[in-house]
């Protein structure tokens, strides 16, 4: 791409378009998790008693803690975007780092929770789990897949934020040009909202 073409792209940069693209991407992500939610509802409808027993084994305290962590991180990324829009670069970076730290804390917490379960012999295809009823096998299978897939999204989000952090530090993202950060924030809110549905489905409904 020569200079002239670069200039054309620069000229043609379209913020509304970038946002539209991100929303479409989020829509497809929602349908990805939507497939899992369909499976969850189908199997819950078929095995209500088993799901009831299995969900009581999850640590509500840890789940609630993670919900608080993730909601707070959504706040910090939103304020980070507000900060960069007002030209407060340092503040924006600090808030972004706080978001990343909260994301990692979420993952650590999740890892701890998984670790305890695995220690008790409850993981897919484990002898202890296979000895249980079919509904409980399904519940924990879905638990691992859905929270695992969500955790993967948290991890991707943290990586995206670290790229954003570098871009802010370099000045590529600034008061005039912040749409990539806004889009990263949108993605983070998606991760957040999916957890808001996972949390009651696995921890609260018994």
């Amino acid at each position, binding site marked *: 791409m020569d200079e002239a073409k670069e200039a054309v792209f620069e000229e043609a940069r379209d913020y509304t*378009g*970038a946002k539209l693209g991100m929303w479409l991407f989020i829509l497809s992500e929602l349908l990805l998790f939507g497939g899992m939610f369909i499976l969850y509802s189908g199997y819950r409808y078929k095995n209500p008693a088993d799901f009831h027993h299995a969900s009581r084994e999850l640590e509500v305290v840890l789940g609630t803690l993670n919900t608080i962590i993730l909601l707070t991180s959504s706040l910090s990324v939103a304020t980070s975007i507000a900060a960069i829009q007002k030209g407060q670069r340092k503040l924006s970076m600090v808030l972004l780092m706080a978001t990343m730290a909260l994301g990692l804390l979420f993952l650590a917490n999740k890892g701890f929770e998984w670790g305890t379960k695995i220690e008790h012999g409850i993981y897919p295809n484990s002898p202890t789990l296979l000895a249980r009823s079919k509904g409980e*096998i399904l519940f924990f299978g879905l638990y691992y897949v859905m929270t695992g897939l969500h955790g993967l999204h948290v991890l991707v989000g943290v990586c995206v934020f670290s790229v954003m952090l570098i871009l802010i530090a370099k000045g590529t993202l600034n008061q005039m040009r912040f749409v990539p950060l806004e889009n990263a924030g949108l993605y983070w809110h998606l991760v957040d909202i999916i957890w808001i549905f996972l949390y009651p489905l696995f921890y609260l409904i018994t």
Partner: protein
Amino acid sequence: MTSTGAMESIRPRISFYEDHGKYRGILSWILTLDHKRIGLLYFIFVMAFFFSGVVLGFFMRLQMLAPGTIMKPQTYNSLFTLHGIIMIFLVVIPAIPTIFGNFFLPIQIGARDVAFPRINLLSWWLYITGAIIVVISVFTGGGPPDTGWTFYAPYSLRTTVNVPLAVFGVFILGMSSILTGINLVTTTHRLRAPGMTWNRLPLFVWAIYSTSWVQILVTPVIGITLILIIMERFFGVGVFDPAKGGDPILYQHMFWIYSHPATYIMILPAMGVISDVVPVFARKRIFGYMAIAISGVAIAAVGSLVWGHHMFVSGQSDFADILFSLLTFLVAIPSAIKVFNWVATLYKGSIVIEPPLLFCLAFIFLFSIGGLTGLIQGALAPNMHLHDTYWIPGHFHYIIFGGMGFGLFAAFHYWFPKMFGRMYNRKMAMRAWAVMLVGFNIFYFSMLLLGWEGMPRRYYDYLPQFRSLHLTATFGSWILIAGLILMFANLFRGLFKGEKAEDNPWGGATLEWQIPSPPPTENFEKIPGIRHGPHDFKELENNG
């Protein structure tokens, strides 16, 4: 290929072939951000996979000539699986949106490129990565997949062959498809030239736009389903495994929630091509512009709700059967609207017989047979008899090959002079068309008859009473392949030896015909202002 453009001709601006950007040689292609170059990259690879799919199909038909002598049953299972995976995921789903959508959608709306050129390149790289993974899965692990392209659980969980890798490849292809969809929807919304209102959009753009929505909305569902197969194979999660409480019928639902709308991802773009080509060769405004545009959206919407008609004998509830059958009949209405509108466009038009129009006529004829056979199997009682027989592949080849395939060939012959700046031999193209049409019908109509008489699909052998029809089908497949060879040889020759094409050889009124052949890198020197719809041939003539 870089030398195929109008190198010697004196043009005010150089074509996109000559403007190689900041890279040289092969890198100027595989790292390009130009939508036309990316379209051609897809073109090369989609065609390569099309040929491998044809070869696999050729050997399947050869097996039916003398069952048991040519290959073992397991080989036959792998052949129909690979034929399906390659043709569906690597050829038919991406073909028109990625080749012609990429190349012509931005030009037709008066834009210089797609909305996200870098993501466009990423889509191509994902396509290649997915394709390579699928190819690797054939030669490694326990051998090529033998599940059929549907990967039905629980067999796909139990078979020892290399299912997880193939499934992962298809997952990557899905990501590519989603990104292409996002790109083209955003492009249509944001980059239309001033005056290019929604009711002035060429119908090809409308079709690609509807298709892209389906790609964005349903591909993630198969994505998660395929991930679950991999999870099942590696960790034994149990979600589709009946031994652990999983429900294989739920797998079928998840699979068809994507894969039925996917058939509309295949056919809608081809319908867009037909809607663009027919009026040009009838020299007439299209009949029912809005009806065609909206019926495309309606097909996309209703078509997403009919997946259960693949599962009439699976044991789903009677209520679901009736509902899905009803919705299947409903989706025939917008499809028929299109067919009637194309025919009405031809009525009293000044018809010019050229290869692109002939392929369109073949499309209308073959798609009608495909559509009507679809209604027969969409009714509950006949479905009991026809399910899993040769009728089904007969029907969907009429739709996918006769419809989408001939639509693709129409697009080849229509846009070839614009893409390469050269013209193929038109007489030869018409001969190839006739040979293919004859071979196609001998081949696939025999399959319909075989199915009607009860020949099950995916069997490597058959009872003596099916012999004559199997021989006829194999014979037809040879004629069809001869026609394909003739057509591609003719196009290939045109690529290098064809006479130079004019800017507007067909007299089209859409924007791509108002710029040089092949187009310059940024398509338009100045973004055009649009004052009329896509079929205003009079205005074109007045402008000289």
